[in-house]
């Protein structure tokens, strides 16, 4: 081998080694996630029911899951009748209006004044039509959260639309409330007084958006699956499901349809390309500013159904059952405290007014 050939081979090897050592693997895509914080998010629902009307004002945060509440805004709902109804700040970014409800036939808009800027929503008219919901449930053994089949509580609604050709757009929200009795602890007296039970509430499948477009269809009856939930010891005692049917405007329906698309994408071939979802709220002085969220008005109808452990197709063990031989501190925390059981969900020891069952 000549001297020149040796130099060539050495040059090649050094070149290859240099390239191999200087380039590293790339495996993360953090730059594609959560790159912008501080965008204003306003969401409000104004219903025709005498209930607490709520508006949430927040800003997106890089941590994503917990947007920062904005407590210092001035929130007012405006009506085409000329009324201005101011909300009260609860200092968490939540604003409430008590004692007022939407009136059929009127239109409403939301005004939010924040840091000298005025944000206004488009006027939305309270829909006139609603539908009849007849609820039912099943307990099925099927795949749900894991690769193994499990018992799943499934809630259905047989929905009957009104006999009119006028368009109707529906959305449902589903909330569960179950009773959870705490353990009788000896240290609390002789004999130990019965502690008040907890009533724990949570949204069933929060990322499930139930929508129905009743326009342009001759079908008047539809059976819809509204929600699923795995069966656990929450079903030991009466378990109520509250279904709120919201009759909404076409614009609100289209907004929720887009939200449904962006949250449904699973990274599959059938995914719809993602896009920003624009709502109906804008900055009066700066049309370029993007405001996330929506202000919607709805005609509301509430339906409830309950189940007990007699409906559950397998035996449920009560972890809080009083046993004389069990020391107080041997009961799990969920048997001694409502907050421990609720784990961040809302709870109360006061039974809801509708808490009635046979």
């Amino acid at each position, binding site marked *: 081998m000549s001297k020149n050939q040796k130099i060539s081979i050495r040059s090649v090897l050094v070149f290859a080694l240099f390239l191999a050592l200087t380039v590293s693997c790339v495996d993360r895509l953090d*730059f594609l996630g959560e790159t912008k914080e501080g965008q204003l998010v306003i969401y409000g629902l104004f219903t025709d029911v005498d209930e607490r009307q709520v508006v949430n004002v927040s800003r997106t945060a890089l941590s994503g899951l917990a947007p920062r509440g904005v407590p210092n805004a001035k929130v007012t709902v405006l009506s085409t009748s000329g009324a201005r109804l101011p909300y009260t700040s609860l200092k968490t970014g939540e604003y409430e209006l008590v004692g007022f409800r939407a009136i059929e036939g009127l239109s409403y808009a939301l005004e939010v004044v924040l840091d000298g800027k005025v944000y206004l929503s488009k006027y939305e008219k309270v829909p006139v039509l609603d539908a009849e919901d007849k609820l039912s449930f099943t307990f099925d053994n099927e795949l749900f959260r894991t690769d193994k089949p499990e018992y799943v509580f499934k809630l259905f609604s047989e929905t009957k639309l009104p006999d009119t050709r006028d368009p109707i757009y529906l959305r449902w929200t589903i909330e569960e409330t179950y009773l959870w009795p705490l353990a009788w602890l000896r240290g609390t007296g002789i004999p130990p007084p019965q502690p008040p039970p907890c009533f724990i509430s949570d949204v069933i499948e929060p990322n499930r958006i139930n929508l129905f477009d009743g326009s342009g269809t001759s079908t008047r009856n539809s059976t819809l699956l509204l929600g699923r939930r795995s069966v656990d010891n929450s079903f030991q005692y009466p378990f109520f499901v509250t279904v709120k049917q919201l009759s909404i405007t076409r614009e609100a329906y289209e907004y929720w349809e887009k939200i449904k698309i962006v949250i449904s994408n699973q990274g599959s071939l059938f995914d719809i390309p993602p896009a*920003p979802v624009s709502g109906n709220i804008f900055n009066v002085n700066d049309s370029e500013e993007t405001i996330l969220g929506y202000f919607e008005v709805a005609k509301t109808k509430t339906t409830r159904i309950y189940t007990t452990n007699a409906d559950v197709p397998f035996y449920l063990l009560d972890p809080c059952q009083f046993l004389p031989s069990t020391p107080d501190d041997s009961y799990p925390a969920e048997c001694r405290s409502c907050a421990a059981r609720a784990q961040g969900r809302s709870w109360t020891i006061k039974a809801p007014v509708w808490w009635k069952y046979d």
Partner: protein
Amino acid sequence: MNQYLQTISNATGPTPIDLWQLSTNYILPQRSHNASLGYFRNFKEDEWSTSFEGFYRSTDNQIEYRNFADLFLNPHLETELIQGEGLAFGTELMIQKNSGGITGWLAYTFSRSLIRTTSEFPEIQVNQGNWFATNFDKPHNISLVTNFRVKKGRTFNTNVNFSSGRPVTGLLSNYVIGAVSVPNFGNRNEFRIPNYFRIDFSYLTNGFVRKWDDKINFSIYNLTGRRNAYSVFFQREGRVPRLVPYQISILGSAFPSFTYTVKF
């Protein structure tokens, strides 16, 4: 120049798809105006070749899909599309060595490919009707190919490729509406996937049998084992599910191969 067949690229899934769409009553044929200019020159009795080229193309009726378009197996695809104007321009510089112990070339391309939708309905405009990068927009592209001839019939070859990552729609933040955790996506093609970089290496030598015309080739594809992103997609993760970006890498490690060739 008119073109009656166009592609619609959805590059947001793990397996990007291209749909081919013929011009119809509703989808006008794409029309473009092209211009290019180049300068070529050889040196040292053609041992070295150099070239410098530039191009410019403007396009009318270029198609894009609308926001929230359902493209897959849709028999009425035209309802999901919007037309606009396109713009592509760039320059390419190339130096090539044609003879001697070391041959090969080095090429660098700077190019842009942009589009903006034009519609009388502002609500269906993509990115508010502003110019944005198409899926094919990769501004920088460098290619280096070298052949080291050690001896007659024995060569070392290297191939180095770099290109800018292609545009992709990314996530700005997550927010909550009611009880729903909603991903907040940015404008279309606002972000880019990581840059592409790959080095290949091969050694070619004569075979074992002198009488035959046989060759042995040992090569390593992606010598550095870099996990170049083939596609980017989003999946839900966590107890309160939120979208997280992922990338798929094809041959994301060094890939050796051995080839023995005999010519009869």
